[in-house]
């Protein structure tokens, strides 16, 4: 490693932050682009499972709230792709890579939504898992990303409440409604345990070394379990992992080791809904191409 890179590394490791125009090592830039682009892709792909439910949401209030949440998530994608653009990769290139299957997005958006219970579990628990990661990104060494994360976290807190409200309405309803939530939780527990990634130790994780991420994967998962397992159990729901328990001595949550090979397969486009979602994204990209042309012609 050359001196300049070494100095840069020491700077970020001592809490220093980097701005768009500052010099940065190529590896740092490449890792930022890959990570932030995946975040943008996830925001954009994450609205597709929810979009399916706007027309099927049970009340007008729910339809409106769901629409607002979707609007927020697409807005997050806009903010995030803008950060990627300043790092050197244009938004159109991100979208090209996304629809060609080269770009990645979060594992949870590769799964289908079977019932309204799934929508509640996604809005509550998937967003809760996401906010654990996003709050840690408020300390990202790349300042422009950390700054927009403030706005994103602020909006996510409304999403979690919306999700929790959907779940509470169902678990206080009929037995059939309660069962919808239990079944959805059974389906979503594995993807939720996959969400924060394999437990690579912080000192071996290059994302932590560069201070792009401020916490290890396992730390994020523990934080999620600590915050949400009690909230799930108090509703009388059963978490589909008999091994899940808190070791009171060490204060850590123990659980059945998730299948990490399966996670790898899902995020490389082999999830149960990967194909369908990408096909839809491709279709909508073609459908709205005329808007971009019209806007650019109007401005010219």
């Amino acid at each position: 490693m050359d001196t300049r890179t070494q100095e840069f590394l020491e700077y970020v490791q001592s809490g220093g932050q980097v701005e768009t125009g500052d010099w940065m090592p190529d590896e740092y830039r490449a890792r930022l682009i890959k990570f932030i682009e995946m975040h943008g892709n996830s925001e954009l792909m994450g609205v597709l499972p929810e979009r399916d439910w706007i027309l099927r949401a049970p009340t007008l209030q729910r339809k409106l709230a769901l629409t607002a949440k979707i609007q927020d998530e697409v807005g997050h994608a806009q903010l995030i792709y803008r950060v990627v653009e300043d790092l050197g990769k244009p938004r159109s290139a991100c979208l090209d890579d996304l629809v060609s299957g080269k770009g990645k997005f979060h594992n949870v958006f590769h799964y289908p939504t079977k019932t309204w219970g799934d929508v509640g579990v996604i809005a509550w628990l998937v967003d809760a898992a996401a906010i654990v990661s996003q709050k840690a990104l408020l300390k990202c060494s790349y300042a422009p990303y950390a700054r927009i994360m403030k706005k994103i976290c602020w909006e996510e807190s409304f999403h979690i409440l919306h999700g929790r409200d959907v779940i509470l309405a169902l678990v206080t309803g009929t037995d059939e409604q309660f069962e919808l939530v239990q079944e959805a939780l059974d389906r979503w527990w594995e993807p939720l345990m996959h969400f924060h990634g394999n437990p690579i130790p912080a000192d071996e994780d290059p994302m932590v070394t560069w201070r792009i991420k401020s916490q290890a994967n396992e730390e994020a998962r523990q934080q999620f379990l600590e915050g949400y397992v009690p909230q799930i159990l108090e509703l009388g729901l059963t978490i589909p992992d008999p091994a899940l328990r808190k070791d009171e001595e060490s204060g850590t949550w123990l659980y059945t080791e998730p299948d990490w090979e399966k996670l790898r397969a899902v995020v490389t486009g082999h999830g149960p809904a990967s194909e369908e979602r990408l096909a839809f994204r491709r279709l909508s990209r073609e459908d709205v191409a005329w808007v971009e042309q019209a806007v650019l012609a109007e401005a010219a």
Partner: protein
Amino acid sequence: MIYEVFRQERKGQPFQHAGSVTAPDGAFAEIYAREQYGRRQESVALWLVPREAVSEIDEFPDEFELKYRRVDGYSIKARLHEARERAGTLDMAPGAASE
């Protein structure tokens, strides 16, 4: 074109840099900024500035160490002690034991 967006959260507060939008012209930039930084009533005002209109200064050399212009340029403790001694007012100094 890239427009830098500054937002004011409440009247009387400073405008703070929020992020940027890409837009083909100023009219579109206004629409995008309104949508991305104001649609949830999180701002009372936005400023849009084309990126190339921003001139940045980020070096402030202090070759002569002009410390006399800053508070850390003054160390008055020893001299104050001497002055109080001379005036016989050491017991009036803040923190001096009073009987």
